[in-house]
């Protein structure tokens, strides 16, 4: 591999695709864990399970969003990252609404249901705010060797 193939002379540019790879792999890992857990029918089923798992996955998803935003140099790539973040926040919002309009929990499941609603609210706030901040940022985080001109 030549120096040009390794991304030119700038280490930051050379490592940018690595951040995309890390972000995508975290996203895949989180999605597969979530799918297996919810699909396996482990109790408590339904909203509680989905929201509680969602809460445990908020931190890695935010990290994946940031890694992808660092790695995606183009405006189109950054918009895709923002769209993915907003989609995840939207899915959490649907979970939250389902929990709020759903039947009142029984005494035995009240604690789990309350926790699940907080989980979904945290997911909406965290993922939504991260995605909107990325949308508002004028350019992706740049390496020390790059010029600082506004994107697009």
């Amino acid at each position: 591999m030549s120096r040009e193939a390794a991304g030119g002379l700038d280490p930051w540019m050379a490592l940018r695709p690595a951040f995309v790879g890390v972000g995508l792999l975290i996203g895949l890992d989180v999605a597969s864990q979530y799918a297996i857990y919810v699909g396996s029918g482990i109790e408590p089923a339904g909203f509680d399970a989905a929201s509680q798992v969602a809460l445990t996955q908020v931190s890695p998803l935010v990290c994946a969003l940031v890694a992808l935003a660092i790695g995606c140099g183009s405006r189109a790539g950054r918009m895709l990252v923002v769209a993915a973040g907003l989609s995840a926040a939207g899915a959490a919002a649907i979970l939250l609404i389902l929990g709020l309009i759903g039947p009142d929990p029984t005494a035995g499941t009240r604690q789990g249901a309350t926790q699940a609603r907080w989980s979904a609210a945290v997911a909406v706030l965290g993922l939504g705010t991260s995605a909107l901040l990325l949308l508002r940022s004028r350019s992706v985080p740049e390496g020390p060797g790059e010029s600082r001109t506004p994107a697009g």
Partner: protein
Amino acid sequence: MALRSTEQRWLAAALTVAGFTIILDQVSILASGVLPLNTGMVQWRFGAVGLAIGRATPLLIADALLLAGVALAPNRWWSRALGAIHLLVAGLLLGALAVFVLDAAEMRRLVALERQQALLVSAVRVIGVGGLAAMLTAWLGVRLFRLPARPPGRRTSEEVLMVGSQAP
């Protein structure tokens, strides 16, 4: 606001320490789950690889921190050492996955019929995520090994002299 080179180096050091702290934390969690070693037992091997791949996300986050540190303050010795570690981990991961595939086939015969579907789904997830992680780690190892030592535009005095001595 651009960071000065001294600030970049300190930030890179902080990111590197943070990355290694996460790695140590994850390794200790993993060790508490798999110790004592029982490599002769198929259930132990199957579970250990599954647990290790289950730690993929925090380890990838730690790796991103280490990479950011290298990108902020490039150092040829450190990037090559990190590249060698990545290549070693990729090799270990591929070996563990090869053993895992054989153990998964063995485990399917050992578990009850109603548990076979769940076992297959978990095994496919571990092989998929682990395989992609091994490929990414190997690619990163090569990339880090060939990483330039400094950003463009910064020439050493020797290079400046060479450029200056060239005939027009």
